[in-house]
């Protein structure tokens, strides 16, 4: 069933993924990660605040139920690494907590939406300050295009071609009331 909540501007917001679609996409990404690495050895999931954190947890639970192994999950706040700190008001930073030594491990960064790539650039710098992983990969729920940096995802829930004035809103269990993905007509991108 597709919901159509009202956007702030009063227009209908088209829902592009339901809560079930989201669960299936996250499950597929979980399987792809294990498949690509022939198991779970050396994999560390790192969620980017805020929505990447519960997403990484969800991927870890999926892997645990299929592989019977709990992969380490970290969380990363990139607020101190943003390249627009001077022009955007800063809010409270999230927690940065990496439970294991990253040296030699495979880090899978997890975020909800991939857009310009600047968040991921910041996350790469932050991760490299925290350790020296063997490899860093990227899993996102939605790739909406409009990259400004040479960054690409390794695991994608859904490719969503959008225009620059639209906004992709991923809502997730554990943070939001309803889960799913919507495209809204503007506001802040």
């Amino acid at each position, binding site marked *: 069933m597709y919901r159509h909540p009202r956007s702030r501007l009063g227009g209908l917001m088209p829902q592009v993924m339901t809560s079930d679609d989201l669960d299936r996409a996250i499950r597929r990404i979980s399987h792809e990660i294990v498949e690509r690495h022939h198991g779970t050895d050396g994999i560390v999931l790192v969620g980017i605040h805020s929505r990447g954190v519960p997403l990484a947890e969800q991927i870890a639970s999926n892997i645990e139920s299929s592989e019977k192994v709990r992969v380490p999950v970290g969380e990363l706040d990139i607020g101190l690494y943003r390249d627009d700190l001077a022009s955007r008001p800063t809010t409270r930073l999230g927690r940065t907590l990496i439970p294991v030594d990253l040296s030699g491990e495979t880090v899978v960064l997890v975020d909800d939406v991939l857009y310009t790539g600047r968040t991921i650039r910041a996350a790469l710098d932050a991760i490299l*300050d925290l350790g020296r992983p063997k490899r860093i990969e990227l899993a996102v729920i939605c790739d909406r295009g409009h990259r400004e940096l040479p960054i690409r995802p390794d695991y994608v829930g859904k490719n969503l071609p959008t225009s620059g004035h639209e906004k992709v809103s991923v809502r997730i269990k554990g943070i939001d009331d309803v889960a799913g993905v919507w495209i809204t007509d503007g506001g802040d991108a």
Partner: protein
Amino acid sequence: MRDLLSVDDLDRAAIDDLLDLGDDFVEVLGRDVPKVPALRGKTVGLMFYEPSTRTRLSFDRAAKALSADVLTFTPGGSSVSKGESLKDTALTLKAMGPHLMVVRHKATGAPWRVRDWTGLPVVNAGDGAHQHPTQALLDLLTLRRHFGKVDGLRVAIVGDIRHSRVARSLAGSLHTMGASVTLVAPSTLLPIDVDSWEVDSAAGIDEVLGEVDVVYLLRIQTERGGGEVFPSVAEYVSRFGLTRRRADQLPADTVVMHPGPMNRGVEIDPQVADGPRALVTDQVSNGIAVRMAVLFRLLTSEVPE
């Protein structure tokens, strides 16, 4: 927030915000690479007209941990000895391009003047016996990290309160945060305007030992005349010093703090200073984190007005 000149400029929400950020920066300082690029390209000017070890080093370390550059000015060996005024020095330093000035000066109000002359954001790092807001913030962060909260704590500030910008800043901000403060000092070392402070007072340390969560000790500031108003050091110690015997009478959870520099054997017994109750080294390390929070807020928020 554009400047940090006095704790009077900080309401409870602003203090909570800086302490929250301070907690985040404690985590950053504990990393293998204790440095983040948040203030890359920014320059912090440090103008220290009074001797200082920990405060100047702490601001220096805080700025560098945020990847800012630092311009340090101290009067020893500078043009001040050739007669340059505070204003000219401030304008000279400004011409070298800092984005913010940290100012310590023996004259009350000097940081306000530097702000007015330069138009730069200014952090007061101690002006005379007036204000030292980042010291108060680091003490609040230390208390909050130790006790989990500041609200409801009972704090005794003991010693040369009249000449202490630390006491003035700390008492004001503790009141803002809901803690209760008792000043313990000879009447000659209480501030002249003590009636306007939101505090109780006691005439001897023994009166408060059993009923405080925090004993905050201050040095006698001989350089500001604090040594001339009581008969002898021995007499001071007998009524106000935290001796081992007195420390043993404190409730089990009570902590001891000191902003430094300490005069061991006067206001604090050497073994108490190094003992398990003492949070002195926590104060120093939290000072870096809270100054990072202040620099970060002032140099990344949307200004000017």
